[in-house]
């Protein structure tokens, strides 16, 4: 799944530098993203783990510049598949969206037009981006539906979205997203609304497709289990920043930020039966008025004075790991290992 550590001569397929996104609302300015930087190589899966309000969905939409232009102020550099997203004009962006970068959503009906059949929608996208004939496009649409394992694919080409079940609509949306062979796939909680038995099918499908097509994937979720199943690297997001980034095993086994540790320990697992759950005290910060210093400090049991002075910068714990905790970076605190795999006694 992971590329061997290639020398940095190879350009990462997604490169984000110091991204800031603010929304100008009537009463206040919402600081949705406050300094996010990361690189993603081809063939890698980055999981962004965070709760609602952390900014994870906004990050994805910023990568395709899908945010409402009137109210949004974006700063920083975004480079996707060789294109400078931040400086491109609308027309050029439209060429890139769907073709080089594709997105799948939590609710497939966002992506699927209810008045056209699936076959028509996929074929139309292919024709528009690649300029081939409708016959060739239809043939490719059939191949795509088979690739996403929709049974009786030929018949389903003529089906309307409302005639399909939830899991099948999700697959159709994935087929649509992959129709132009994008090099980057952005996934915004695509499995959250699905039943458990369907969710695991879609997760496996995405993993398989990602490997076959060599795409880079950014997968946003609030579910730790889903992130573990899907991602090579995990970025934990809080109040518009990545507070920790690292390989999945390292982040899960030995979290490098108090928020990650608290999030993992408070994950409800069956084995905790009869015991009180550990909760993260307080509430997420108001993005309209972020505190000075570390945004997690008000809720952090390890917080000290110097944490509140100014926002901790990104520090490297190791070549693959980053943390925004001053104390962890300085080696002052030892975060407990949540031992999720042991606690999860429900898996046979």
């Amino acid at each position, binding site marked *: 799944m992971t590329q061997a550590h290639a020398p940095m001569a190879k350009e990462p397929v997604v490169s984000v530098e110091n991204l800031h996104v603010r929304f100008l609302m009537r009463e206040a300015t919402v600081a949705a993203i406050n300094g996010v930087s990361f690189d993603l190589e081809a063939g890698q899966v980055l999981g962004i783990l965070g709760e609602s309000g952390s900014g994870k969905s906004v990050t994805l939409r910023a990568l395709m510049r899908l945010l409402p232009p009137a109210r949004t102020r974006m700063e920083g550099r975004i480079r996707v598949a060789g294109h400078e997203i931040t400086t491109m004009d609308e027309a050029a962006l439209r060429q890139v969206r769907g073709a080089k970068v594709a997105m799948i959503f939590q609710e497939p009906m966002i992506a699927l037009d209810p008045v056209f059949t699936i076959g028509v929608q996929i074929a139309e996208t292919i024709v528009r981006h690649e300029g081939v004939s409708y016959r060739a496009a239809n043939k490719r649409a059939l191949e795509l539906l088979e690739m996403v394992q929709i049974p009786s694919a030929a018949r389903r080409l003529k089906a309307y979205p409302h005639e399909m079940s939830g899991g099948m609509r999700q697959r159709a949306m994935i087929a649509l997203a992959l129709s132009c062979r994008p090099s980057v796939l952005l996934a915004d909680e695509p499995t959250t609304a699905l*039943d458990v038995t369907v969710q695991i099918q879609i997760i496996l499908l995405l993993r398989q497709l990602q490997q076959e097509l060599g795409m880079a994937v950014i997968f946003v979720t609030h579910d730790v*289990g889903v992130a573990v199943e899907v991602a090579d690297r995990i970025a934990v997001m809080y109040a518009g920043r990545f507070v920790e980034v690292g390989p999945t095993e390292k982040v899960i086994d030995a979290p490098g930020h108090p928020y990650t540790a608290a999030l993992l320990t408070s994950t409800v697992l069956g084995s905790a039966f009869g015991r009180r759950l550990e909760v993260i005290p307080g509430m997420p910060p108001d993005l309209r008025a972020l505190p000075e210093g570390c945004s997690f400090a008000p809720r952090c049991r390890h917080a000290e004075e110097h944490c509140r002075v100014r926002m901790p910068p990104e520090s490297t714990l190791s070549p693959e790991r980053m943390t925004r905790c001053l104390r962890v970076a300085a080696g002052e605190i030892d975060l407990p290992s949540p031992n999720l795999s042991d606690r999860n006694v429900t898996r046979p």
Partner: protein
Amino acid sequence: MPRPSALLAVEHLTKHFALKGGLFGRTSALVQAVDDVSFTVERGETLGIVGESGCGKSTTARLLMHLIKPDRGSIAFEGQTVGAAEGLSHRQLHRQMQMVFQDSYASLNPRLPVAMSIAFGPLVHGLAKAHALARAMELLAAVGLDPALFANRYPHELSGGQRQRINVARALALEPRIVILDEAVSALDKSVEAQVLNLLADLKARFDLTYVFISHDLNVVRYISDRVMVMYLGKIVEIGPADRVYGDPQHPYTRALLSAMPSMDPRRRTRQAPLSGDPPNPIRPPSGCRFRTRCPLAEKVCETTPPALLALAPDGARRVACHVHVPGSGHTRAAARGAA
């Protein structure tokens, strides 16, 4: 016969929804949402109900609360049949049993201050307004919200977790014995969910409550439940003590459901999905055993005969609806008739 310790006894509950179609609105199809469901809720326990979409768990909740009228079947509270002449009236049942819904925002009247929303129930049952509001204030404190800050606020001014606390307070206002929680924490953030679950545990102990906890989240149900009931396409497929159902599932669907949960260990990721396809449509469920179309153990007998929910262990604590566990059923894996 309802067992003496059962607080709630449900017998043969059935609800089919008619789909109207055609020129004159004739019934074109029946959605068999809940089909011949029987179970009990013991005093002081938490009964978890799990299942995927279309399994009928939410419909069951609404049938229990009499928000929908059942086609067949009966509900008995403390031995008294609900709706019968000598038994409990529906209004009386509502004093004993209340419900918390999933959508914390839609469950509250946006035009009423939250204290009024909480006080509404007691008001309706005859308490004077001043008393009802005083009780509302007490309940606000009980669910962890400072009355001085929250009593006069409106739902849109509160967060999801706070609203759900209000909904819990509202459910407790009538001092019920049973609280049905229909996906009550599903829409909340994980960290808020943990807070609300702790609150529910506290309230259960403090007010001596019995819970029916409906959810699609298997981890949460395992955490909170004493007994668990697994539903599929309107029928109960397995019911028993939570640790045994989770630790040693006997029904093929339960096994598939549990192994479909995402792994928490990056080194041992799931390699194969236990079930393929989507849960089928409750409009035309398969004949015989409804799970047979996706079951790895399905045989001829599963097609012809619906399996009954029968006791597994001698004491009847665990019940499974599967021919494999019925001696002499004709299934190749079942023991011969008369075998131990």
